[in-house]
């Protein structure tokens, strides 16, 4: 296995608020990771840094062995240019809590457009791929619906298909079921379970659904105050957490006392 993501001593602050403190973290290629922890602990920030939506203040982030936020110019590390960031972004896709589908485009056009514009795919190939992906997420009959004609769960599944269409090596899922009505949560989580089983894409998921994290993840990271408190396979973390802080968090969120 090779390291596809590495955070080296990364710090990030919003003004006076130190969100990540000297964070070291690594992810192996193909790994399925669940990031759990209290709200405000910096989980979203980690995904946003990887998606280049948020800069870092110090340290280094490596993706596929290359600096994400820096580049080498004459053997010197300088802040990444927009061109470098564009190249790095090709590896990464993200699904957001609020779906963020393009409301003026139909479900299928949401999936076709980025393929055509960014990957230079032919329209007919883009359509074929979009149809395959809509079938994968169980929405083949909804291709001509606009986002506002779809339920939240359906919109989120289209958003997952849209991100997959770009063939990223790394997929980031930020609390993708938090904005959904409870009865729509499972249909989205089932798509993620399916992906975890069938695809070798590296996946990072921030979630508060502990049962789902258990099914989905090869490894669970528990965060608190911008630092990793504990990390391990779901069986260890959920059945036999070593840290008191992990135990407290799980007790609060699932009610049972591990």
């Amino acid at each position, binding site marked *: 296995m090779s390291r596809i993501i590495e955070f080296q001593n990364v710090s990030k602050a919003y003004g006076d608020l130190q969100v990540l403190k000297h964070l070291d973290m690594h992810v192996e290629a193909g790994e399925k990771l669940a990031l759990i922890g209290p709200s405000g602990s910096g989980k979203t920030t980690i995904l946003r840094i990887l998606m280049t939506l948020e800069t870092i203040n110090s340290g280094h982030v490596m993706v596929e062995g290359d600096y994400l936020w820096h580049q080498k110019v004459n053997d010197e590390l300088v802040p990444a240019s927009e061109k470098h960031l564009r190249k790095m972004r090709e590896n990464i896709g993200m699904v957001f809590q609020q779906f963020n589908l*393009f*409301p*003026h485009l139909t479900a299928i056009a949401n999936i076709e457009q*980025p393929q055509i514009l*960014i990957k230079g795919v032919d329209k007919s190939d883009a359509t074929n791929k979009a149809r395959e992906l809509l079938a994968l997420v169980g929405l083949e009959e909804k291709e001509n619906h606009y*986002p*506002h004609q779809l339920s939240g769960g359906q919109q989120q599944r289209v958003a997952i298909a849209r991100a997959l269409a*770009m063939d990223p090596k790394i997929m980031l899922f930020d609390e993708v079921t938090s904005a959904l009505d409870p009865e729509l949560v499972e249909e989205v989580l089932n798509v993620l379970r399916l992906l975890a089983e069938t695809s070798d894409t590296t996946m990072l998921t921030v979630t508060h659904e502990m049962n789902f994290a258990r099914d989905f993840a090869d490894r669970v990271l528990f965060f608190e105050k911008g630092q990793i408190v504990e990390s391990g396979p779901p069986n260890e973390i959920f059945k036999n957490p070593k840290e008191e802080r992990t135990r407290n968090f799980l007790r609060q969120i699932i009610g049972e006392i591990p």
Partner: protein
Amino acid sequence: MNWSWKVVYDVLPQMLEGLVITVQATIIGALVAYALGLILAIMRMSNSRIISLSTYWISEFIRRTPLLVQLYFLFYVLPDLGIFLEPLEAGIIGLGLHFSTYTSEVFRAGIENVPTGQWEAAKSLNYRPYQTMRYVILPQAIPPMIPPLANYLITMFKETPLLSAITVVELFNAANIYSNSHYKYLEPMTLVGLFFLIVSVPSAYIAMWLERKYQRRYARNH
């Protein structure tokens, strides 16, 4: 004071010619106001503070001074600097420039009302900045801009009599010239009012209809 149909008959041809000029000045002036307004809006939203702030102050200056003074400047002062404009050219530039400072606010609000999640989704799919604007932001921003832009078109139409101050023979001036030489004011000025009403009232209703249409569409998407 007696209404004379003969005067109406006499003045009408000149007034129709004036109306053509008025419509020309309004439409071309509005196109200038829209194009320049979009440029001002983009400059105002620039990341460079110098560009953003100087655009703000220039817009404020133009907006806070009377259009009439700006028209005088374009037509009577610029020649001292070696720039000579035809009356209608100066009028169109003046109208367009003045109202671009209003339309730019419409463009800016329209663009800023698109949720940040849309920008972030486009970035996460690796759209270039211009592709984000062209394929993601503007298609969502433009529909709600249409009603206020249509309203500025109507306002500009009503402001065109100011162009008479720089010798443009538009609808009002055509009537005025006739009035001053024949000492007949009742019929020409009544006709001016009527012409403006005939155009303004239906356009106002069209603008209101646009507003309802696009507000509904906008509400559905959000």
